């Protein structure tokens, strides 16, 4: 009898403890563009005031966001592109609704090696380079050397938004090298005189590579309205967020401090972005 009562007491107290703590973990999965810089920094700021909260981040590409949200293994999906119709269908099919939150604005910067004489490209040329129609730098005013084009891998959102924005929806040519993340593209372009790649705005400053003007527009916040490769970055949740998730998203998308961080990281805060895009 005694034993039984002790176990019952233990079980009850465990249950109370569990409910009192509530959900103490937020799992982020998805975009490498968001997950390698912005979200970790937001997290660092946010847990200053929410010490008990555990935030897990696994950035491996936007594709992960939706597959993980669907299977329930992520609370927030980070995506550098809007959800695709067939992905949405999957959620519909599962009886779940996907809610979109704009995280920030980003511009995809096209980068080439510092030594490369090419300074600007037209959108058409850019598309032709990545579809494989243009294979030599001399065709766009550079040296007589083969082009090495670096892209993100196909589970990346940037991969898809770039093909939509920069290549008129055409497919990548088979000459593209698929790299694992923005930073890897920066590294390779900085090491290869004939390299060209694209990265999120936050990654566009570094040693030994430079950004290229597209249609005479450089990727700068003031050019948001005219730069052809500007896009939104998103957080996705399944259903309207509640509890900790809601609190975090509110902080991330509206708090002043969060905007500061967003800007420091190199993105454009969502409010400011919407305003200047409207212009």
């Amino acid at each position, binding site marked *: 009898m005694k034993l039984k009562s002790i176990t019952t007491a233990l079980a009850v107290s465990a249950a109370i403890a569990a409910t009192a703590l509530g959900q103490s973990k937020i799992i982020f999965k998805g975009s490498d563009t968001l997950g390698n810089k912005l979200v970790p*920094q937001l*997290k*660092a700021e946010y847990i200053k005031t929410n010490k008990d909260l*555990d935030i897990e*981040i696994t950035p491996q590409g936007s594709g992960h966001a939706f597959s993980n949200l669907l299977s329930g*293994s992520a609370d927030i999906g980070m995506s550098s592109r809007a959800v695709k119709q067939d992905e949405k269908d999957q959620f519909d099919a599962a009886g779940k609704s996907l809610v979109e939150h704009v995280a920030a604005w980003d511009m995809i910067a096209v980068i080439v090696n510092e030594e490369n004489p090419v300074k600007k490209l037209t959108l058409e040329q850019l598309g032709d380079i990545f579809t494989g129609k243009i294979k030599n730098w001399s065709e766009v005013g550079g040296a007589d050397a083969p082009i090495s084009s670096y892209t993100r891998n196909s589970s990346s959102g940037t991969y898809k938004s770039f093909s939509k924005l920069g290549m008129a929806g055409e497919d990548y040519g088979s000459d593209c090298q698929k790299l694992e993340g923005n930073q890897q593209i920066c590294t390779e372009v900085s090491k290869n005189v004939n390299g060209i790649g694209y990265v999120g705005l936050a990654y566009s400053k570094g040693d030994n590579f430079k950004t290229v003007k597209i249609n005479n527009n450089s990727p700068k916040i003031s050019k948001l309205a005219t730069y052809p490769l500007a896009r939104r970055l998103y957080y996705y949740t399944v259903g309207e967020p509640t509890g900790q998730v809601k609190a975090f998203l509110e902080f991330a998308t509206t708090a002043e401090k969060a905007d500061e961080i967003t800007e420091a990281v190199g993105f454009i805060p969502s409010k400011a972005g919407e305003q200047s895009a409207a212009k």
Partner: protein
Amino acid sequence: MNASNPFAKKKSLFEVKERIQLNLLRLACYTIIGCAIFIFSDIVVKGAPTFFKAEAPFVNTEFFTKSPEILSVWHDQDGVKYSMTKSDADVWQTENPDLQVIDLHDYAASGGGILGPLLGTGLLVVCCMILALFIGVSAAIYLSEYCGKHDKLMNLVRLSILNLAGVPSIVFALFGWGIFCHMAPIHVSVSELSDTTLWAFPFAGGYISFQGWDTSLLAGACTLAIMVIPVIITACEESLQAVPKGFREASYALGATQWQTIRKAVLPFAVPGVLTATVLGITRVAGETAPIMLTATVTEKGNLPFNTIVDEGVWGFFSQSVQALPFHIYTLSKLPASENVKPMQYGSIFAFLLLVMGFALISILLRNRIRKKLKW
């Protein structure tokens, strides 16, 4: 010199050719050794500064007591360079309001230490080895002691086990990902019942649902265990077979049952072999990246794995995803080549190498010691 010496060395082109050939062989050997030394020395020289420090206790304790964090690097108006974790940087900035922060760069997962990944790898290895040893050793005992050498079915099994030992780890990873992350049974309440589940039936107030364990410690450990079981079975069976037949016959002759014989006259002498197999398995498992990348790991995680057990109980502990050292290194490999990231990169691979190499070394030492004690 004796001119009439009939056995004198004949100097000829042949000899020169032969010497060249021999030196080529030697060169091959020392090329490999040279490469190894190059790699080790590079890692040690560049990794040691992260690892050790000049003053007592001579080990960089921070590197082992913190998890990976964001690294902030900047300089102030006087050109003094600063490099610290993001959280320290925030403290620093409030303490030194009159110093400007210029040219601030942040690097993911490059500051702090490697405690989280280290613990994660440790947990994965321990869980995996418990599973693998339990199944592997028992299977080896059965194959070696209960089945004859000529049991056709078992020989087929042996052959397939040998074959599976050579299957690439990515195939196991794919398998583990498909099975454990997406299909394994789990006990859930109604609200947690996933729509992607294969099959579910009510059980004990909830449902047993075949919906998988997601990326979790358990899924990772199981995947690794399945990968290493063939290795363990093969090695254990070998060491059991190496126990002289006379021991068994002597034991039977004294009227022992089969189990008694195995227990008293075979297993004790096979212990060194089993131990070696274990360490061999650990060396292989600890170094694998692909399987845990698909099944168990996260890049960034605030809590240490043990904290979860308090909050979420045993099941929560096993179903959490963990950081792991190899995956941490993989994350680091995607960072830009920068002087600021290098300490973390080299420190991590140095620690990882020490860990894995340590196990390799232990296996050799252990084997030799036990061999000396038990000689037949």
